[in-house]
């Protein structure tokens, strides 16, 4: 089973069209020049012995990616809608490409959300990705 760190690295290693900067950990603050940005939140998961002697384990890793796009106070709702749906399609495409490359079962959900980073609200997307081996 992938470690938590490896799974986070898998997701942060994706190339997502339109994303300007990828952080390997949540940033202290965001510069508008780096938006849309992508970073991981803390993962969660579990493991269970699969065979006699615990030679193998089944397991699950789940991790949220935050992708803030633009400060909520800027732009119009129509612009945000167009930008977010395009970003969600790009995230979907990147996750499909990652799924072809990894040795575990990858599933994900993508949703638009209001994200608060360093006290500022941003419109953006959240990916909840899960790696499973069983």
């Amino acid at each position, binding site marked *: 089973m992938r470690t938590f760190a490896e799974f986070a690295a898998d997701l942060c290693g994706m190339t997502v069209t339109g994303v300007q900067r990828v952080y390997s950990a949540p940033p202290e603050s965001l510069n508008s020049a780096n938006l849309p940005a992508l970073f991981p939140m803390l993962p969660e998961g579990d493991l269970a012995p699969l*065979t*006699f*002697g615990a030679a*193998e384990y089944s397991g699950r890793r789940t991790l949220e990616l935050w992708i803030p796009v633009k400060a909520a106070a800027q732009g119009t709702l129509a612009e945000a809608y167009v930008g977010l749906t395009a970003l969600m399609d790009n995230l979907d495409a990147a996750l499909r490409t990652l799924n072809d490359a990894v040795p575990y*079962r990858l599933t994900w959900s993508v949703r638009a959300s209001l994200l608060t980073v360093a006290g500022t609200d941003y419109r953006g997307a959240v990916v909840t990705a899960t790696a499973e081996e069983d």
Partner: protein
Amino acid sequence: MTNHVLIKDAVIKLNSKDVSGNSNEVSIEMTRPTDECEPFGADVVTTGAGAMRVTFRIRGYYDKTADSLSDVAEKMLAGGTEATLEIYPQGVASGNEKFGGTAGITGVTPTFTKGRFAVCEASGYINNYARSTVTSS
């Protein structure tokens, strides 16, 4: 506390190969089919137990390497050969129980499902079945 047995590290040897690392369930089925006799002119059928039959089933994971559960079972099936089967539900330590005999394989079922570990099931019969206690490990 009860005397129920929690299984963690069972050891299964098929044809002297330890296939425990591919396995997570093993079962032994002991049966005697009902025999019936209807004596001429009798009003009631006489019923009794027939000869004992012992079969087994090992469930686990498909492994493409040599001497894995799927490899050993498939070779025995293809060759129609019989070989020793040893089942130690609580491991091979002295004082533990051992089930075994001479096994023949009558079924091997590797199953491949998208997004899942490939699994394998092997089943067959046991001749010269015996349950004993391990005296030395």
